């Protein structure tokens, strides 16, 4: 039962993170997840000071406030024209985080706020804190918090999908229809802050970043359509959560770290083997495109010199290699490609365009 509860919480965290994470990655704001994940600790600690609970409505409130403060602070610094974007982000969150760590140290001396748990979360302990109401055990508290935020994110994204995409990805259009572009960003930051704070207790700050960025990256290597990316990121997150949990059990190590490691492995596999974007197929594709383009150049060259006096000289393989500045090996590859496609043929020791080749050369000029 405990296994199941932990996996359930982990999966819900994965889904809750994947949704805002996809938007962050597409907007090139991935590192804001890192910044907010660190800053939010201050909100959690302050709330803990007041309520003596790590997770509470107050902590969610503080978290959103500090999340917004982080973003607002970075933007103000950039607007002052004194500091660039990347440096601005890297200045604000360490301050919040340092204040938080020092507070944890002070407060933690008398209570059970553990300095290490701050980073790692303690997913294994999550099932121990249970929600009891009206005499019934409703399950782990974190589960409810995470579940609520997750459902909220899903519903908000579905309900406001169009306004969200427009304000985030098409500022001109959004102004035209009367939606302020800043709304999308604000909504996204609130989602990120809430998701981070409810996931903190379970998985710690680093896994939140990992779960926001990595599943989206994996999905983007496979598909480009936004809705499919969102769904796939959620699926990948859940798979990694479950696999990662069992790895953690096997190694007797931190669950959060194991899920992160699993995501890393999944990413590596996708990166190498994805049919669309994987390095392997990408390389093969690029090579082929390069050779095809080179062949095009060759064919056009043959076409332009056809029927001129220097034709016989120009069309030998050595001359061409020298002229194009290709080495012998590359020239051979290009010629083999063209011969296989039937664009030209050998006549003695020089190449001659076929009629297919002539057509291809002519069509090459009607590209846009």
């Amino acid at each position, binding site marked *: 039962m405990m296994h199941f509860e932990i996996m359930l919480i982990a999966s819900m965290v994965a889904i809750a993170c994947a949704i805002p994470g996809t938007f962050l990655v597409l907007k090139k704001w991935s590192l804001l997840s890192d910044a907010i994940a660190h800053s939010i600790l201050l909100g959690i600690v302050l709330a803990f000071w007041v309520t003596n609970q790590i997770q509470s409505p107050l902590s969610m409130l503080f978290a959103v406030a500090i999340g917004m403060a982080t973003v607002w602070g970075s933007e103000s610094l950039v607007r002052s*024209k004194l500091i*660039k974007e990347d440096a601005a982000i890297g200045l604000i969150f360490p301050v919040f985080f340092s204040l938080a760590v020092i507070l944890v140290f002070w407060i933690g001396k008398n209570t059970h706020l553990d300095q290490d748990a701050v980073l790692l979360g303690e997913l294994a302990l999550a099932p121990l804190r249970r929600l009891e109401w009206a005499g019934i055990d409703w399950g782990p508290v974190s589960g409810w918090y995470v579940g609520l935020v997750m459902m909220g994110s899903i519903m908000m994204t579905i309900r406001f999908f169009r306004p969200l995409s427009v304000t985030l990805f098409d500022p001109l259009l959004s102004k035209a229809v009367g939606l302020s572009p800043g709304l999308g960003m604000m909504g996204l930051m609130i989602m990120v802050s809430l998701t981070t704070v409810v996931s903190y207790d379970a998985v710690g700050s680093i896994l939140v970043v990992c779960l926001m960025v990595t599943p989206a990256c994996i999905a983007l290597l496979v598909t480009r359509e936004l809705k499919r990316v969102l769904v796939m990121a959620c699926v990948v997150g859940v798979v990694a959560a479950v696999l990662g949990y069992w790895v953690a059990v096997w190694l007797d190590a931190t669950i959060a770290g194991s899920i992160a490691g699993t995501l890393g492995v999944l990413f590596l596999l996708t990166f190498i083997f994805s049919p669309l974007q994987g390095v392997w197929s990408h390389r093969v594709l690029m090579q082929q*495109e*390069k050779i*095809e*383009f*080179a062949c095009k*150049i060759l064919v*056009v*060259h043959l*076409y*332009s010199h056809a029927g001129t006096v220097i034709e016989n000289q120009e069309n030998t393989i050595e001359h061409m290699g020298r*002229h*194009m*500045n*290709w080495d012998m090996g590359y020239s051979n590859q290009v010629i083999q490609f063209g011969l296989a496609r039937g664009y030209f043929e050998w006549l003695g020791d020089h190449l001659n365009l076929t009629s297919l080749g002539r057509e291809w050369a002519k069509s090459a*000029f*009607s*590209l*846009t």
Partner: protein
Amino acid sequence: MTVPAITICDISFSYLNKPVLWDIDATIPQGIMLAIIGPNGAGKTTLLQTILGITPPAAGRIDILGGPIQNQRLNIAYVPQRRLIDWDFPITVWDAVMMGRYGHLGWFKRPSAHDRQRCQEALDAVGLREFATRHISQLSGGQQQRVFIARALVQDAMILLLDEPFVGVDAVTERDIISILKQLKNQGKTIVVVHHDLHTLHDYFDWALLLNVRLINCGPVSEVITPDSLKTAFGGRQAAP
């Protein structure tokens, strides 16, 4: 017969499998002012970058003063587009101009009196003597352009390549820059400019290279700039052979 300044042989360049430059063949003699003209996306900046050896072409090769660019680095000077420069970078006008001497200095040497004198002369030539200690962001658009021309001047190169130097500068600066470039031409240097303004072609330049992915023509301005050739270049479709 002097060796040509720049010899372009069958240069082709693609990006994402679309041709940006195709089968460009041109010979640019020394001692002229040449404008590279063409519509947006015609490959003008790419051609410049290929000449400078910044981006390797898919095919073809370029000779600078008869040899490959690697051997001719000291003989070719580059003035980039103004919008690409980081104006907040902590350097003064003097520092920026002195950068041009680093090709001669290499790793270990400190700037000598001769280097400092060249910088001073270059600043005088562009009329920025009093601004030497100013930070580069504290200049007007025209003054900023002059700084990077001065930087090219101190390189003592035979060939200067400028990428859209007249964008966003005032009329006075434009006149001044042209007069400096003409003086350099009279000293025997070769000036190649990516230019955007057809109206000033005849006044400023001797030669033109008309480009729209393919080379349309390269030669004296009066020969190259004809109504037909302009239609081919700017007519909205790529040139056929």
